[in-house]
């Protein structure tokens, strides 16, 4: 039915905005707001097929949702047998708020540092991402009950500890925006790393993260938000070429570049200059690196010297052992495997439990003809690898040496 499809489109497009406004109207009571939005959607499903979709569907849904919330409060008041006839006052809501998008308040509340990171992720996906509790549970490989409890606990804390539903003060804004971006990137990586879990939901997580990053870009106009969006688009553009038909891993250098998603790459490349304009933060620099890979027609065309110098920049700005490891790989491409091996040394102890450290060392040792050491390093990597495709890849390499 065409009308049902059109209504579903409206719900998908408007759900997070309507919910964000309803949460404000309900003074931060997430449960009441969610119920009211659900009721409003049900009312729309009953009425729109005959009455037609209203000109301002969002305004319609918010108005109806508001009435449903008031009904709900009246019912609660009756339940508690409180005699006072007046319900708790609900603030007036304008569908197009002059105070800016309510989704911005919502995302800052969901990613509030007083909530555990896993709760931030779940709440963000549930409220702004529009995934069901069931879908989020499947994506993170935990039971529906555990995920539902996690969400309830988070919403209860927001209400009872009074975590504010507002855009943070200027002095805290940068740090809080960083926290939001960390949550979005975590959601993306959970989908991209594909360590386990339902493949379909995994792809959904990447799509949701990109959608959320678009919201952050639109709402904050921060350079790093552009960088994050570009970075994720560039990674995601390779999604169909990272494994073969057996699910085996294909390295970047061996991927069929003709099958990279051109539209995603073009969109990302247009964002990178904007991302770099605000002082080139870590996401922006990583996006610039990914852009150099995406811009090389063949693997042999890759501008490794430029990539290595961007990693230098990243080590300066956002030092982490993983960044040092990635920089070492780039250095190996510019100066040869011996130089790469030397560049890994400083993080060898720190990353001793990280399978990719051993995999990188193994590859460089192999290229240097130090086969016995390479075999040992592949074995170290195999002892720590989690995902099946990566395991099979390492086993293949090991077999080639033996």
């Amino acid at each position, binding site marked *: 039915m065409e009308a049902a499809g059109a209504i579903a489109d409206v719900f998908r497009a408007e759900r997070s905005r309507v919910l964000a406004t309803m949460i404000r109207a309900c003074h931060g009571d997430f449960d009441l707001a969610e119920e009211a939005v659900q009721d409003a959607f049900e009312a729309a499903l009953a009425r729109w097929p005959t009455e037609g979709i209203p000109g301002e569907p969002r305004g319609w849904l918010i108005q109806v949702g508001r009435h449903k919330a008031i009904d709900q409060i009246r019912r609660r008041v009756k339940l508690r047998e409180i005699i006072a006839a007046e319900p708790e006052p609900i603030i007036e809501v304008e569908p197009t708020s002059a105070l800016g998008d309510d989704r911005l308040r919502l995302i800052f509340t969901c990613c*509030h540092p*007083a909530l555990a990171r896993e709760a931030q992720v779940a709440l963000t996906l549930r409220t702004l991402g529009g995934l069901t509790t069931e879908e989020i549970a499947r994506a993170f490989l935990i039971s529906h009950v555990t995920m539902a409890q996690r969400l309830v606990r988070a919403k209860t804390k927001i209400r*009872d*500890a*009074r*975590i*504010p539903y507002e855009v*943070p*003060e200027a002095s*805290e804004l940068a740090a809080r925006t960083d926290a939001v971006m960390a949550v979005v990137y975590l959601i993306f990586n959970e989908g991209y790393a594909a360590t386990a879990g339902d493949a379909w939901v995994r792809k959904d997580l990447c799509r949701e993260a990109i959608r959320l990053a678009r919201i952050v870009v639109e709402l904050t106009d921060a350079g790093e938000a552009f960088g994050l969006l570009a970075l994720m688009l560039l990674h995601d553009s390779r999604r169909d070429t990272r494994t073969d038909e057996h699910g085996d891993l294909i390295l970047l250098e061996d991927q069929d570049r003709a099958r990279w998603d051109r539209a995603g790459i073009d969109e990302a490349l247009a964002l990178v200059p904007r991302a770099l304009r605000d002082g080139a933060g870590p996401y922006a620099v990583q996006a610039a690196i990914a852009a150099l890979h995406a811009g090389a027609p063949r693997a042999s065309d890759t501008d490794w010297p430029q990539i290595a110098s961007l990693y230098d920049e990243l080590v300066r700005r956002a030092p982490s052992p993983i960044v040092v490891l990635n920089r070492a790989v780039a250095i190996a491409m510019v100066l040869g495997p011996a130089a790469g091996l030397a560049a890994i040394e400083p993080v060898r102890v720190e990353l001793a439990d990280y399978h990719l450290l051993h995999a990188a060392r193994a590859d460089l040792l192999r290229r240097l003809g130090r086969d016995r050491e390479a075999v040992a390093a592949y074995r170290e990597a195999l002892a720590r690898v989690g995902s099946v495709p990566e395991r099979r890849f390492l086993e293949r390499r090991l077999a080639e040496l033996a």
Partner: protein
Amino acid sequence: MQYLMLIYMNEKQFDAKPPAELQAMFHEYNALSADLGKSGALVGGNRLQATTTATTVRVRDGKSQITDGPFAETREQLGGYYLVEAKDLDEATRIAARIPSARHGSIEIRPVHAM
């Protein structure tokens, strides 16, 4: 909304501080209390005596069991508290960050249950 700020700190480290440093810290506490009082945020607050003076009471099967001190050996001990009025958790967090012991120990913020 009221928030109770439980001030945890390492008693041994605290006792080992030189007098001048303790003096400076008390001065800082007094200034903060005065400031919170002026802004209307302060509902109450006190420094507690050391855990060596603590007594624990449990009633089991109608019988009182009284024991010396708190049971668990923890790294940080409750050393004092503030009870403050704040509009939301962010305001409470900002107040907690001003408590001198936050720099060495930690402040647990607990919203008070509205009766």
